[in-house]
């Protein structure tokens, strides 16, 4: 049987490539979890005695068996590892079994006795706000709130020529990664090793150690490679229960979630209800913008506060608004768990805001592109919440590459329309977030240069980006580099792989580590060669003399590696700002999009024909990688607008597998053009991440294309074909 996967590049085309959920260990037990069938219920009695006596059962665990912390979370530890007295969602874990075979584990679950008392169900955020609603958390159902005001919106509305007011609803979108959540926990003499796809190995280690009351040094987490995440594995999933069962039994344990478990309890994109009242003068000058945000975070906080903060921070877009009022509420419900997903809160407000902008432009008879250019904030102006920025988002550079959308047309039974959108989104975390990142550069005993980074490759190409950017900075060939990701036994804490920060962090951390590493290499070479370090440089294959025409290095890296190990650890300074109101980012990336859709007048279906994305990328590590990221972005955006939504009536997800939830297939694919803005005024911040921004720009451009084609306002996503047909039937 096999242990951890080999430390090769994240290359799934190589035969034998294994994900962490493919791992197995000698004597491994198989785990299964007893989950709540109720959206909201009290646990009156829980009896696992019979299950403990079942054949093949090694251990049965309940909350009472947890030696340390009972709950986890980011800002607030409000989610139980195992529920003791109350469940807040279908799928909440109550007890867990590890047995010799998966079938024995499942059989033991059936022997657990639970007496439930069903409680009233809060199906969504609106229900949770009603007077007399059951209270899900000690501080009430509102888990986080935001408010921001500038100028006087009422005064702005009073002098406005045009006001557009509407309510937009965005769907609970599923991440839809192909590898469901899972973990393998292996006890050993060195402590407990957890192999599980994740985003932030170091934080996962700390939380698991806290749960087991262990010294974190006795816990090792390997979190990369990841078989798809899109944010869905950016919080603990199967790791804690697998770790607990392994800890209690002293044997390796594998816990793999089924797709049904993933859908019931895994996180989803937060459904938002967004009220916007936006106004401009007769000449198109924006005047006032009032925004009310309501986000359904489901049973527990998860990333909810950060998601709401991000929505709040992006509610104004890259525009000048003299008068602004934004408020937001994050509310708990009994409908699963909402959490991190690419686009992260900003996507929801972008789809609403960019439709408002288009509608205001139409109201005053200005073309959509001209309207945006007319109201664009200056590149050097403060950010949306008044913060000083580390660099401009350069949204203006993306905007100037937009082409005016052609007029809509009819092709047989199809209505064709083109829409545009312009957005900006923060990179990294807001003030106070885990913005630090360490990296280590090493000369391995085998004579290779290793980059050690605590972040994970989710398929976004971090492995490749790290190799390319390190090779560029160090002057060696990228093939000579080894990249080791997300293994707490060796990699430093680089913070989470999230928030589009990977590429920029790698650039900045390598820039921080490279001078000391190169100096150490050259000093050692100077000693060996008996010539000054200033006459030497690192190049392909080893150490070369500067200004030489030689065709071989003076000293190979293998020869240089003899002796003491060489490792340089350095950190990238956090990019934060002390100015502005609330949880603000200091760095934003701009992106523009054009989208063409065809709406079928017979079926009401929306078909995406073509999308053009214009991200402000700065320096590009890999063009093929950039295009691949943006193609993925555009597809997830198309799903968000045209196909995907997971309603949870009465707190029960309407699908329990991939047959009940439509994601784009190859038959839904469309052409994507990429026109990246690479030439931006130089700064030290490195390449801008594009792993999310393409979704944020493409989705509202698609909404605007639909409205251009049909006049249909995308108040509720995904677009319901029935609603479209009704609209088309009513339209003249």
């Amino acid at each position: 049987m096999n242990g951890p996967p080999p430390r090769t590049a994240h290359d799934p085309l190589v035969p034998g490539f294994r994900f962490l959920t493919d791992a197995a260990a000698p004597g491994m037990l198989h785990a299964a979890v007893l989950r709540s069938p109720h959206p909201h219920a009290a646990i009156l009695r829980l009896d696992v005695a019979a299950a403990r006596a079942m054949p093949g059962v090694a251990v049965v665990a309940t909350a009472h068996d947890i030696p340390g912390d009972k709950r986890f979370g980011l800002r607030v530890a409000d989610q139980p590892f195992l529920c003791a007295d109350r469940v807040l969602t279908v799928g909440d874990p109550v007890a867990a079994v590890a047995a010799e075979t998966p079938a024995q584990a499942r059989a033991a679950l059936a022997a657990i006795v639970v007496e439930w008392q069903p409680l009233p169900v809060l199906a969504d955020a609106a229900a949770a706000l009603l007077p007399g609603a059951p209270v899900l958390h000690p501080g009430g159902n509102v888990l986080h709130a935001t408010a921001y005001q500038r100028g006087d919106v009422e005064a702005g509305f009073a002098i406005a020529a045009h006001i557009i007011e509407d309510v937009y609803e965005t769907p609970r979108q599923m991440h839809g990664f192909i590898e469901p959540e899972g973990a393998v926990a292996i006890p050993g003499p060195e402590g407990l090793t957890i192999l599980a796809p994740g985003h932030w190995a170091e934080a996962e280690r700390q939380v698991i150690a806290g749960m087991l009351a262990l010294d974190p040094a006795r816990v090792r987490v390997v979190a990369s490679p990841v078989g798809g995440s899109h944010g869905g594995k950016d919080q603990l999933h199967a790791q804690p229960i697998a770790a607990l069962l392994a800890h209690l039994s002293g044997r390796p344990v594998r816990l793999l979630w089924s797709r049904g478990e993933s859908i019931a309890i895994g996180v989803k994109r937060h459904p938002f209800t967004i009220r916007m009242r936006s106004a401009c003068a007769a000449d198109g000058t924006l005047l006032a913008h009032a925004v009310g945000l309501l986000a359904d975070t489901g049973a527990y906080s998860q990333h909810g506060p950060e998601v709401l903060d991000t929505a709040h921070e992006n509610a104004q877009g890259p525009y000048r608004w003299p008068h602004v009022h934004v408020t937001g509420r994050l509310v708990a419900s009994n409908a699963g768990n909402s959490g991190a997903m690419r686009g992260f809160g900003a996507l929801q407000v972008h789809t609403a805001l960019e439709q408002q902008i288009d509608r205001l432009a139409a109201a005053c008879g200005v073309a959509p592109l001209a309207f945006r250019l007319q109201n664009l904030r200056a590149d050097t102006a403060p950010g949306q919440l008044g913060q000083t920025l580390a660099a401009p988002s350069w949204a203006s550079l993306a905007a100037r590459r937009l082409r005016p959308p052609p007029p809509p047309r009819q092709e047989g039974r199809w209505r064709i329309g083109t829409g545009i959108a312009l957005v900006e989104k923060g990179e990294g975390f807001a003030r106070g977030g885990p913005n630090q990142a360490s990296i280590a550069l090493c000369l391995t005993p085998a004579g290779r240069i290793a980059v050690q980074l605590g972040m994970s490759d989710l398929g976004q190409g971090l492995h490749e980006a790290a190799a390319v950017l390190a090779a560029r900075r160090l002057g060696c060939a990228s093939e000579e580099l080894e990249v080791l990701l997300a293994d707490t036994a060796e990699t430093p804490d680089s913070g989470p792989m999230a928030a589009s920060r990977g590429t920029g962090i790698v650039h900045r951390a390598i820039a921080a580590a490279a001078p000391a590493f190169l100096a150490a290499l050259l000093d050692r070479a100077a000693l060996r060669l008996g010539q000054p370090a200033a006459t030497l440089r690192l190049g392909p294959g080893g150490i070369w003399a500067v200004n030489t025409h030689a065709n071989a290095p003076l000293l190979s890296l293998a020869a240089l590696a003899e002796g003491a190990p060489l490792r340089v650890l350095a950190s990238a300074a956090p990019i934060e700002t002390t100015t502005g109101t609330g949880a603000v980012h200091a760095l934003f990336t701009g992106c523009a999009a054009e989208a063409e859709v065809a709406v079928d007048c017979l079926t009401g279906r929306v078909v995406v024909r073509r999308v053009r994305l214009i991200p402000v990328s700065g320096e590009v590590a890999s063009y093929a990688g950039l295009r691949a990221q943006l193609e993925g972005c555009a597809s997830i955006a198309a799903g968000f607008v045209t196909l995907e939504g997971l309603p949870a009536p009465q707190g029960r997800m309407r699908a329990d597998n991939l047959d009940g939830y439509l994601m784009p297939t190859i038959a839904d694919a469309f052409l994507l053009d990429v026109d990246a803005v690479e030439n931006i005024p130089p700064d030290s911040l490195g390449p801008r991440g594009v792993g999310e921004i393409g979704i944020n720009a493409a989705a509202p451009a698609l909404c605007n294309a639909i409205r251009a084609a049909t006049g249909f306002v995308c108040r509720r996503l995904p677009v319901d074909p029935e609603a479209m047909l009704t609209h088309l039937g009513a339209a003249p």
Partner: protein
Amino acid sequence: MRVAFTLDGQPVEIDAAPGERLVALLRDGLDATSPKLGCGIGRCGACAVLLDGAPVPACLVPAWRVAGRDVRTRDGLDEAALAPLLQVLREERAFQCGACAPGAIVTLAALHAHEPRPDAAAAELLMAGNLCRCSGYGGLRRAIARLFR
């Protein structure tokens, strides 16, 4: 029940419950993990294997059905024969995280080897049973356009 079949060219024999699915037999019993269990209902295609040369979702095949037959996973494909196809998939960035890759490669290889070979439009349609969440299918479509001329 004892089931004997050929797995990736090697004879294997394993105990299986009558209703057990091939994907569980492969992944849990035989440590053949290149087929991925994405949904268990034949929708995502990540567990596709070749059964006597034809692609099938291993999650829909009961164990008894493979007795005496030839099962080939992505890891059991002939690498030399596969190399040109993989080269194109790599150049076109068909996959990102790669969890869907083994099932997609098995299916694509079978389509590519099929006589007569489907054209690109037909091959695309036949790949609609293999879900990929990362790529938006751009790279896969470019690869298919080159491989199925």
